[in-house]
């Protein structure tokens, strides 16, 4: 049997890993045990961040479950879904995903790999001590952000973005070094954020998609039949996994609410203000992420506004 090492940064039990394990089981069964995906979770092989795209290209591992936002240092186009407030709802998100996929596939081929399927993380919101209902509520709030998009977006909104490693976040929240964190509901549950914050406004300002990718040399070593089987499985299971992400969001939102976190969504006015703050970054993305990215952005916005 062919054994393919697949690494994922996320811990066992996380929904991305659960999805990956399901996929591995399905592949094993459908190929009569001829192809085995050997999953290493929790970044156990020391590969877990911005190096995954090149690690798969160079064949360090045969595949990886990677966060696309972390790969923008190699390939800025992969950051399109994390451009702030580009999608207003689930339909937008699905449209952007579908429009972007062929572009992703081209990038993947350039990096000697094949993207099998993508699963977005639940939308990003803000955990804070004080309620965030208007832009004024964000003024001067020391908010932990992760990427360039988030840092500039919240700076534009008047907040005071702070960067720090995840390991520092919990002690920093507890002692008041920071006033809040922007992340998704599962991460809020992982960090038991109800111990330090009271409010979660699910701004949904950014999408953070994971992609499961496989090295092309490893892929080409499979038989045509095996390739066909795996491709079909990826296509069939992708909607289930994306549903899993939504379910996970709801489940975790419930857990947060049960622990006393007040959940909310942006008002129409706040939503408009968020869009205004985000627009300069759309333009910046067009200018800095290459001609393909510009074309993709145009294509998506046209399709969205035609809906």
């Amino acid at each position, binding site marked *: 049997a062919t054994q393919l090492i697949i690494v994922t940064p996320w811990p066992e039990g996380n929904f991305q890993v659960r999805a990956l394990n399901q996929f591995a089981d399905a592949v094993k069964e459908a190929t009569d045990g001829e192809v085995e995906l050997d999953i290493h979770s929790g970044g156990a092989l020391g590969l877990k*961040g*911005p190096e995954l795209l*090149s690690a798969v290209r160079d064949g360090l591992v045969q595949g990886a479950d990677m966060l696309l*936002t*972390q*790969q*923008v*240092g*190699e390939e800025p186009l992969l950051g399109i879904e994390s451009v702030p407030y580009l999608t207003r709802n689930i339909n937008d998100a699905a449209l952007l995903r579908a429009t972007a996929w062929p572009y992703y596939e081209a990038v993947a081929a350039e990096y000697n790999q094949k993207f099998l399927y993508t699963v977005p993380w639940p939308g990003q919101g803000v955990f804070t001590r004080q309620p965030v209902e208007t832009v004024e509520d964000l003024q*001067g709030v*020391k908010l932990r*952000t992760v*990427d*360039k998009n988030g*840092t*500039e977006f919240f700076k534009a909104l008047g907040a*005071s*973005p*702070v*960067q*720090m*490693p995840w390991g520092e976040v919990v002690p920093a929240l507890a002692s008041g*070094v920071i006033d809040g964190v922007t992340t998704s509901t599962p991460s809020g549950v992982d960090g038991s954020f109800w111990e330090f914050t009271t409010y979660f406004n699910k701004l949904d300002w950014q999408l953070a998609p994971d992609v499961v990718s496989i090295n092309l040399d490893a892929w080409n070593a499979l038989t045509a039949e095996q390739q066909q089987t795996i491709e079909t499985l990826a296509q069939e299971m992708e909607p289930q996994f994306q549903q899993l992400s939504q379910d996970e969001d709801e489940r975790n939102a419930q857990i947060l609410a049960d622990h006393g976190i007040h959940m909310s969504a942006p008002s129409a006015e706040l939503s408009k203000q968020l869009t205004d703050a985000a627009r300069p970054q759309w333009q910046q993305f067009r200018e800095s992420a290459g001609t393909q990215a510009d074309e993709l952005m145009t294509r998506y916005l046209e399709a969205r506004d035609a809906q």
Partner: protein
Amino acid sequence: MISCLLRLSDRLSWATAALAALAMALLFVLMLSEIISRNLFGRSLGFSWEVSGYLLGLIIFMASSWALRNDKHIRITLLRDHIPEGYARWLDLLATLIGVVIAGFFSAAFIGFCLQTWHGGTVSSTPQEIPLIYPRALMALGLIVFTLTLIVRAMVLFSLPGLLAHPPEDATMTTKGKL
């Protein structure tokens, strides 16, 4: 000849270690500035964490050869302590040569890594978008000097092992005498 080579190598090691010491100072200043900026002016510098990480990598590799010359790196001497003095030198030479091979592999691997970073134009996936070739090239430099120091060490052990009996003094390396 060989003592001249050792002096030259020592100067090189000291110079890279001096850079590491400056990186150490900068690391402290950077972290302190972040604390001050956040608490007094309410804004984070942003880049301090990322740059601190690179500085740490610099310190580790840039100071490694000087630490080697000062016998700061850890080795297990159980075997060497229990064999006659004459053999100990050859065992040390063997260990140094193995060290040369491994450090050489480190250097070659890291140079390849730098070339890839250079060709790909890789920048960090953080708001700073720092071109990673800068910190990586400096770390590669540290590794290369480390490998060279090991090679010189092997040559000295082979011809004039007495030269290694006394570690070089920090002060003798500074041109002004006292700092």
